[in-house]
Structure formats: C-alpha cells, structure tokens
C-alpha cells in the first residue's frame, strides 16, 4: 500500500517539476488509484501484484469514499461562499422578475431552504395575495408576507385603529389611532419591505365588490372578524377556484385551514354549514382574546400562504389545525367535503 502512495507522490512531484497543470496532475493520481482498485477487485487473493498494492479492496474503497466526501464538501463550501459574496454586492432592484443583489441578500435565508430556493422566492415575487381584515390575524400575516417578499398584497378592512386593538394588532402603533387600519398597515409593510406593492381597500367586503376584487389575486387569506364576511369570502373563492386560507380565533383557541377547491377538498361551508345564532359565537370584542394568539394563527396563515404559493411541503388542505393556547396543545383533524354543500357540492 505504501508503494502506491510513493508512486502517487512521485507522479505529483514530477508533474510539479514539469509545471503540469494541477488539474491534470489530480487526474493522473486519481487514475492511478482507480487502476489499483481495479487490480484489487479483479486479481485473485494472494496474487503478488495484489499483495504489493495493499491486499484488500475494502481499504481502498473506503479511502476513495473519504476522498469523494472531501471533494463534495469543498465544492459546497466554495459555492456557499460565492453565493454570500454575490449577495453582499449592493445593486438597484431589477425589474422584470430578476432579483437585485439587495433582494438576494434580503431573501438569502429563504433561498438556502431546499424546499423554497431561488424558484420559490421567484414565485413569491410574482404572487398576488389578498388579506381580508387588518386586525389581529391580518397584522402578522401582512407583516410576514411583506417581509417574505410577496409581490402584491391587497388588504381590505373598513375599521380604523382603536386603542383597544393595540394589545394584539401589532402592525398598528399608538400614533396610528384613528387612522384607517389598511393605511396604517400599508405604512408598516412598506417600512418593512419597500419591494412590495400594497393595495389598501378601506371598505367592507361586500357581495357587490367581492368577485371583482378576488379576480385580481391568486390567493385569499381570511382573517375577518364576522361570519357574514367568512361565508361571502368562501363563496367567491370557491366560484373562482382560488385557495382560501382561513384563520379564526376565540379567547385562547384558534383554528386554521386551507380550503382549496382545486384539490377537491371541502370548503368552509362544508365544515360549518351555518353560522351560530347571533350571540352564541362572541367576537373578540365581546369575549376577549389573548394577545399573542392572533400572532400564532396569523403567522401560520402567512406560512401556509408561502407553501401554497411555492409548492413547498404540504399545506393544510383538507385539514384543520386547532391550537389551544391555554394548554399549549395542537390537534389536527381531517376534513371532508359534503356532497350536499350549497357552495361547492356537486351541482
């Protein structure tokens, strides 16, 4: 075995003296090792040449394995270094879908994710997302979608920021009290990420405008605070075949699901055919809500949105996740379509 190393070293030294390029010298030495491995594998046990070159192929194969790992690691490290250096070079935002150096740096932690990568970030850069409600759920959903680089974010809400909202609606600030929530949210999102386009709609989502509004977006997030809006958003999303990410909460508990008619799953009304009688399902204002709960569910909505947009992982399609904050429990149930559903049932 030592003999082989000696020959390899001699070849390397000779190449260095004769000024042979490094690449060719690596090739020659690799060729030598390959020949030795072949000899070890082909010659019978005890053959003199085999004795001379190290008796067993296993050791050589092991060495080859280590060599391969070292080469791949080296490539990986230098590749990552090149990526980081690239990202560090500043540059203006490039139109037409290509990322500027600043954007590459900003989204570097996304781009290194195997499930997202450059293609996923590019899909985000082309995504048009509508968020219904700029309240507790909308606040983190909007902030994270803007930070994540979703291209166009629409937000519809007819409320103004109130003092009592600020215990949980973290996109708004004390100085925003009295301002329409959609404008306060727009300011915060643009301050977070100037690359996103925010479209604020300071009005209630109604039957008259819903279809036209939804048509401008690929994906709808429902973080509204009343059943009328929830059923309306579901009807229009089903009619247009658009995924609806629905989050809701009460006191200490939240629910989240992705209703996506394109995947033959159920819709919101399959699961909840009727709203409870007025007064039986209190709103946040009446029942109270623990401040960080909308942060949990709203952030999950943004995460599900990113998964739906980029195709990463498995969104909560046909599933509902229940988060019980008071006991720190999550439960998940499989949902089913109802054939007699008036919204999505077989017609």
């Amino acid at each position, binding site marked *: 075995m030592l003999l082989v190393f000696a020959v390899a070293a001699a070849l390397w030294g000779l190449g260095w003296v004769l000024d042979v390029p490094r690449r060719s010298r690596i090739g020659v030495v690799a060729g030598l090792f390959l020949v030795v491995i072949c000899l070890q594998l082909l010659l019978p046990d005890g053959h003199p040449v085999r004795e001379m070159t190290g008796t067993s192929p296993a050791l050589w194969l092991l060495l080859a394995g280590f060599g391969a790992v070292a080469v791949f690691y080296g490539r990986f490290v230098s590749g990552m270094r090149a990526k980081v250096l690239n990202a560090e070079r500043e540059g203006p935002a490039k139109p037409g879908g290509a990322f500027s150096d600043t954007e590459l740096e900003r989204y570097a932690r996304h781009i290194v994710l195997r499930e997202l990568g450059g293609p996923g970030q590019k899909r985000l850069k082309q995504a048009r997302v509508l968020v219904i409600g700029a309240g507790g759920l909308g606040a983190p959903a909007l902030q994270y979608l803007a930070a994540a680089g979703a291209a166009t974010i629409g937000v519809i809400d007819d409320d103004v920021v109130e003092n009592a909202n600020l215990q949980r609606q973290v996109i708004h600030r004390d100085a925003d009290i009295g301002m329409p929530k959609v404008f306060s949210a727009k300011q915060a999102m643009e301050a977070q990420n100037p690359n996103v386009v925010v479209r604020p709609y300071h009005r209630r989502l109604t039957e008259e405008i819903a279809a036209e509004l939804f048509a401008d977006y690929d994906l709808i997030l429902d973080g509204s605070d009343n059943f009328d809006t929830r059923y309306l958003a579901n009807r229009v999303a089903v009619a247009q075949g658009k995924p609806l990410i629905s989050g809701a909460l009460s006191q200490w508990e939240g629910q989240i699901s992705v209703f996506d008619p394109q995947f033959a799953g159920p819709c919101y009304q399959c699961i909840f055919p009727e709203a409870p009688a007025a007064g039986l399902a209190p*709103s946040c204002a009446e029942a109270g809500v623990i401040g960080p709960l909308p942060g949990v569910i709203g952030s999950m909505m943004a995460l599900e949105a990113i998964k739906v947009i980029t195709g990463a992982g498995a969104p909560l399609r046909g599933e509902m996740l*229940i988060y019980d904050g008071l006991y720190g429990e999550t439960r998940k149930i*499989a949902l089913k379509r109802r054939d007699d559903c008036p919204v999505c049932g077989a017609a």
Partner: protein
Amino acid sequence: MKIIVNGDPREVAATTLSELLAECGYSGRVATAVNEVFVGSSARIDLALADGDRVEILAPMQGG
C-alpha cells in the same frame, strides 16, 4: 364510557355522537370529528362511540 372531548378525558353516558353533543350541551351548529376524521352532521345519529374515542367538537369562530 371514557371519551376524550377536545383533548379532555371525560366519563359520558352517551353512546352515539349526537347523544354526546346533547350531553355536553352543544347545539347543532358545530363541526365534529371522531378520531381526527370529520363527521358531517347527518352522520352523527348513527355514529356509535367506542371507549377511548377522541372527539373534537368545533364551534365556528368569527374572531380575527
């Protein structure tokens, strides 16, 4: 019979899902799941419960 309702074990007299809803004081307008699978309202009367079943009773929530 011992049934787990919304994560809490409890002793119940009900033998079907619809009886359980009545026993726990729920009106009809809730979504239900048994052992993590959704059960539509029309299937509740016939759905017999077994000891140790995990039942989820979900009231629709409007809060956002």
